[in-house]
């Protein structure tokens, strides 16, 4: 934690103010408190300073200052992250990107936009929607989260099933490297010479540097959209419907699932028209050409009926569609009405394993004496169990964390991943060995060394903390280890 003497702190504050201006530095503990955690309140840590740069040059100067002082630093957007990824792990600097929130350029002919990292995700779509365009990745927090944060976490959202996640929409980045150099990775064209460093940077959780400009693709709004609600009396049937839709050769824009606890919470809070007695509901959205839309919708309806849906209906108009989506996107908030606290999990499984894994999730949570609401991106197998608990009950939080770890193990066992969109951050750093070998992690560590050799840029994230879990140096060749690890763990 903060070990700066008060004299040193005052001197540093002056230096930081000389870079970003007098209104751009916080160092009062009361003010710093706002920045002590992100959306995952399990972890808290206080920075020595929060600084608010307004240009790449500011960021570079702050980063160089941090390097000179040996102070760790971390970039922060809106703080909506769910893995503790933007926490100042060991004091040092939080570099808030919230004042760098401009749209610098919109180029409709080349279907791209150049933006600053503090821009709110939804504000980009708002800016281009009058001309019939939008920015595709749509995390549930899109009204608040920033594009810089989306870059760090390679954020997804419901519509990633058809359109991909953040990385599929980023062409280039201006980055302040951890040594303060300003470098372009990628650019405005589909490829640039050499390794795909923009692709490597996206999803690096703020450990490779700080993006100061972002070039993203903007897409034409589809001509037509249809939203189907399918209601099931058994969760297994809803799970099976997901694979049935895919097996019929359809790729919907989104396939979202909500279980009974979630439906009831949403109905209590917002009254969006989901039947309260249903065991599960699927929200399926198709988009594309007007021609053929009815025929495709009919196939979705039929696939759901064949899988055992008791009711399938299509949103009649935009208002009904918006209401159904409001229920889905507000589900996390609705849990607040049925429980004093909840923790959202994030794991991914092959979608054909959904029935099995959902049963296991419910068993695990029940075994810990807790309740769970599932609301998630079923189409791409991205689970979000929300474990409800009362933080005033001693030991409750620990049980939630334990249940979460067990759920992650199940995801890993069926060939899945421990994060689909929330990132590893602090929360899951020690779970990395569930899916990666020491050799896998060693290569990741070496990649990090190439970007961030001092380790001052967002330390303590992504990699397991227990030293025994990571081998940092080159891994020696031993045929038996390869057979044992490589072959046995092959996917």
């Amino acid at each position, binding site marked *: 934690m903060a070990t700066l003497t008060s004299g040193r702190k005052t001197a540093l504050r002056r230096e930081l103010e000389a870079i970003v201006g007098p209104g751009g530095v916080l160092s009062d503990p009361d003010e710093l408190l706002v920045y002590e955690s992100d959306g995952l309140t399990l972890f808290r840590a206080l920075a020595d300073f929060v600084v608010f740069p307004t240009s790449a040059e500011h960021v570079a100067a702050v980063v160089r200052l941090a390097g000179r002082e040996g102070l760790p630093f971390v970039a922060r957007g809106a703080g909506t992250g769910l893995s503790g990824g933007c926490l100042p792990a060991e004091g040092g600097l939080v570099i808030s990107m919230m004042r760098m929130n401009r749209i610098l350029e919109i180029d409709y002919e080349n279907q791209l936009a150049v933006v600053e990292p503090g821009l709110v995700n939804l504000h980009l779509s708002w800016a281009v929607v009058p001309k019939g365009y939008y920015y595709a990745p749509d995390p549930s927090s899109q009204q608040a989260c920033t594009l810089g944060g989306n870059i760090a976490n390679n954020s997804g959202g419901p519509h990633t099933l058809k359109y991909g996640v953040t990385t599929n929409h980023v062409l280039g980045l201006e980055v302040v490297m951890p040594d303060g150099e300003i470098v372009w990775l990628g650019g405005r064209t*589909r490829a640039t010479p050499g390794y795909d460093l923009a692709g490597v940077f996206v999803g690096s959780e703020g450990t490779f540097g700080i993006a100061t400009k972002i070039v993203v693709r903007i897409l034409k709004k589809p001509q037509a959209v249809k939203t189907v609600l399918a209601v099931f009396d058994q969760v297994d049937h809803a799970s099976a419907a997901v694979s049935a839709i895919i097996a019929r050769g359809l790729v919907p824009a989104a396939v979202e699932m909500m279980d009974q606890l979630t439906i009831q919470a949403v109905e209590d809070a917002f009254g969006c028209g989901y039947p309260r007695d249903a065991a599960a509901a699927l929200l399926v959205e198709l988009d594309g050409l007007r021609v053929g839309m009815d025929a495709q919708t009919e196939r979705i309806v039929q696939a759901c009926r064949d899988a055992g849906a008791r009711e399938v209906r299509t949103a009649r108009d935009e208002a009904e569609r918006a209401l159904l989506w409001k229920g889905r996107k507000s589900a996390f908030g609705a849990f607040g009405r049925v429980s004093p606290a909840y923790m959202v999990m994030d794991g*991914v499984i092959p979608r054909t394993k959904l029935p099995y894994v959902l049963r296991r999730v419910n068993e695990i949570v029940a075994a810990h004496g807790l309740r769970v609401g599932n609301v998630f991106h079923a189409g791409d197998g991205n689970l979000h169990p929300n474990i409800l608990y009362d933080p005033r009950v001693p030991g409750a939080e620990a049980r939630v964390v334990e249940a979460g770890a067990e759920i992650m193990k199940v995801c890993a066992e069926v060939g899945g991943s421990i994060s689909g969109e929330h990132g590893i951050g602090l929360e899951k750093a020690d779970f990395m060995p569930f899916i990666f070998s020491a050799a896998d992690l060693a290569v990741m560590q070496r990649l990090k060394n190439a970007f961030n050799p001092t380790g001052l840029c967002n330390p303590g994230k992504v990699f397991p903390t227990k030293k025994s879990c990571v081998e940092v140096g080159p891994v020696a060749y031993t045929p038996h280890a390869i057979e044992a690890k490589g072959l046995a763990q092959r996917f």
Partner: protein
Amino acid sequence: MQDALLERLRAVIGPANVLTGVELSPYVVDGRTPEAAVFPGALEEVAAVIALCGQAEVPVVPWGGGTAASVGMPAARAGVVLGLRRLARLVEHEPGDLTVTVESGVTIAELQAALGNRGQWLSLDPADAERATLGGVLAANAAGPRRHLYGTARDLLIGVTVVTADAAVVKGGGKVVKNVAGYDLPKLFIGSYGTLGVIVEATLKLRPVPEAERLVALRFARLKDAAAAVRALLASDLIPNAVELLDPTAAAALGAGEAGGALGLAAGAVLVVGFDGLPEQVEWQCAELARLAAPHGGRDATPLSSAAWPRLAAAVRDAFPVATAVMSFDVVPAQVAELMEQGAGVARARGFQTAWAAHAGVGVVSAALVSDREPREPGPVCGVLSEWREMARAGGGHATLERAPLAVKSQVPVWDDPGAAGRVMQRIKAQLDPKRILNPGRFVAGI
């Protein structure tokens, strides 16, 4: 070549799988003959080969189908070709997950055939599908016309297993379609030309085979008219899977395989557009395309055969019996037509014939240049190629010299300047391959 190394290689993977002497002629690149070509039959044999070569400090040149073997700077030292054709097993294909895991030595054609039997396909259509292996296509980041809608390897590869320079078997990503755990190693290896690791296995996203698909060609009097039609198409509601702009020479190569060969008569340019989906969607879009293109002078809308797809991917290269040089460009889509027009003009003024084609919607352009005289002196060719590169760079794009004689490559760099990012790339290479065993000297920034 140390005989001791050859002996050890033979012992590890069997003498029949180690080629030497005259058997090496298919593996000669830029006039340089490798010291041996070895063909391991299993993952652990790949690791063993790399370990042995690493100990002997002999470079390793990963080799799939050899279709992109000549792309890159000539190797600094002769090494051992590491062929992956024997690693071609389909490891896992679960249609309900829309994913496949496969060894990297499988050819694109073999993989598509296996997937097609179950109604799915990999939406990646590079040239030379019969010979190009999946690993090679990933390493060279090759793609074809359908990248317009479906993107490139970076949009499809979700997991990768590589053998690194220190012979460790490493995997990145996973086998699920959405995954942010750890750094995105698949992105690192795509387009890395075998300089960071040898790709031995890959997991990819798949798509259902569309019910209907069609290619339509339209003729225009001038290239700029065709470009205006492309702009109208991209701003419309249509969802083409390919948008190809060809000059008359490239169009002639494409049209030569079609009944009637009518495309060769184009005076200015040919626009070829692909659509897929339900039959009624394809039908409606073809009609809309003709309607959109008419005000720009687009005429003679002609459906092409499905055999035109692979010819589209190689139209520029195939426009001449032997092209002197092939250059590819990445520019913003709005600059495609101007580059094609001005680039052809520069070459014509110096007495060269050229052929141009573009994936116009994504700004990827290729040009082939041919000299009718036997060039004793590479100067004029180099002059044209350098001017082309400057044109692309002036608009924020870049150029790659994909094929050229050694005399040209020694004057015109194969790769464009990566700028300050080049230093980051060098640091990555130094971290992953400190002894410079893998394809040394072939790639950008001396990597």
